[in-house]
């Protein structure tokens, strides 16, 4: 009788464990109480004991009952009062932006306009003197070039990055060489001779390297802290409509919901070695016969 009770207890424990909500990696913890002084918007309801629950942030009803892989994060109310332009915009509704925000390593000058050499050390082993660098091989980085951006940026932060992270063909290398000479720029490859983030993007804010030097040439339409400027374009709707059927077919094949990012037109560019908007950057590598 006692062993029967013991087995029933084990089964119940397994059942409870199995029923525990499965959360995605890096999910905000739930069950905790808010820090003192934190004042979330009124619509952000807390649990009975003032603890964080699913409904504090999510507007999808009975979210905890939906299996993780079936949750559709693209619906407007997935995050309360959404959608948001970025996840951090949502975070700052409760968390103080100032102080919590990760610093932007590309903003390299302090308020007095002096170069903050500590920023250099984010990527470089030692802060280089730009004027004394005559060859890229003189530079010593903390990580292989291809890894430096990761952590702050995804490996594939925008469409068409994956297709670019390859060793360029002889034909393309030749075009790159010509473009470097023509525009007096650099188009560096990673440690395995593949195209990487810094092939197209320059990590240095304008002025860190003299704009007369190849490494200092860049497109700087507006301040770095404002990021790239986009504007909605009528083609955005046409683009999504055109891809709708093919996207549905793809989703059916993969049995997953995929969000196709909307098409928006670049209005202001920053931290690029050549303008992308007029195609100059693309044409540095891609040449066509017709």
């Amino acid at each position, binding site marked *: 009788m006692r062993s029967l009770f013991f087995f029933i207890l084990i089964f119940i424990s397994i059942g409870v464990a199995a029923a525990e909500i499965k959360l995605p990696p890096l999910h905000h913890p739930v069950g905790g109480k808010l820090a003192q002084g934190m004042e979330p918007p009124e619509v952000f309801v807390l649990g009975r004991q003032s603890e964080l629950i699913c409904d504090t942030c999510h507007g999808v009803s009975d979210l905890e009952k939906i299996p993780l892989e079936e949750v559709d994060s693209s619906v407007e109310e997935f995050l309360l009062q959404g959608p948001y332009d970025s996840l951090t915009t949502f975070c700052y509704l409760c968390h103080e932006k100032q102080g919590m925000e990760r610093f932007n390593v590309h903003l390299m000058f302090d308020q007095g306009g002096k170069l903050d050499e500590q920023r250099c050390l984010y990527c470089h082993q030692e802060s280089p003197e730009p004027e004394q660098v005559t060859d890229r091989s003189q530079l010593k980085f903390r990580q292989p070039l291809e890894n430096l951006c990761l952590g702050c940026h995804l490996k*594939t932060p925008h469409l068409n990055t994956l*297709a670019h992270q390859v060793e360029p063909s002889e034909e393309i290398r030749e075009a790159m060489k010509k473009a470097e000479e023509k525009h007096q720029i650099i188009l560096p490859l990673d440690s395995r001779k593949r195209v990487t983030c810094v092939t197209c993007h320059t990590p240095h804010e304008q002025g860190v390297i003299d704009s007369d030097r190849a490494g200092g040439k860049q497109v700087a339409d507006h301040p770095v802290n404002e990021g790239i400027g986009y504007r909605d*374009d009528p083609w955005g709707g046409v683009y999504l409509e055109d891809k709708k059927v093919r996207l549905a077919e793809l989703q059916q094949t993969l049995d997953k919901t995929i969000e196709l990012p909307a098409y928006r037109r670049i209005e202001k560019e920053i931290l690029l070695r050549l303008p992308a*908007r007029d*195609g100059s950057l*693309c044409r540095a590598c891609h040449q066509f016969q017709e």
Partner: protein
Amino acid sequence: MKIRLTFSLCLMFFTLFAVSAEVVKQGDEPKWWEKRRQRADIFFPHNAHQEIMKNRGDVCMACHPFSGTKLTDLKMLSKLETLSNEPLEAICHECHVAERSAPIACEYCHPDTSTIRPVDHAFDYKTIHGEAAIQDQAVCRLCHLDLSFCTDCHFRRNSSHRVNHPLGYRDRHGLEARMDPATCGSCHNAGYCRECHRGGNP
């Protein structure tokens, strides 16, 4: 025993060979941009479009978008990138069809026109197209932008074969022409009428 061992070894080698061949095959799978040159269904001369696309505000990224994504599953992302780079019919057709500010001949961009031909356009469609054309000419004009495509046959004068109106229709066309002149106008311009009716001829 020896035969069994030999057989097992052969089977192992064969399996390894097949697997490695498959791996090489997958690795050699051409990317979308490599397949581009082999495509017969569409032709896009990039250089010819450079300036006009620049004037319209987006040169490369209207068709090859670099929009931000948080998708990290590389397999899914690869498929999404292929989809995002697929030619966008609406963008091409704005100039080549709607505005006609660019060449309108289908075969310029679709060298193999069989890839864009509607399924009902079978071998005898030429003889039975009349009904569909009368019902909705706009559908025909989605592809047949140049009216000469119709008039080359329908206005032929070097043949006794009438392809639209029955024999003797010229003598009795007046009533229909007065009732619904727009119907005549869909093929005939005013000059066609004036050729006979000029100088007060009824």
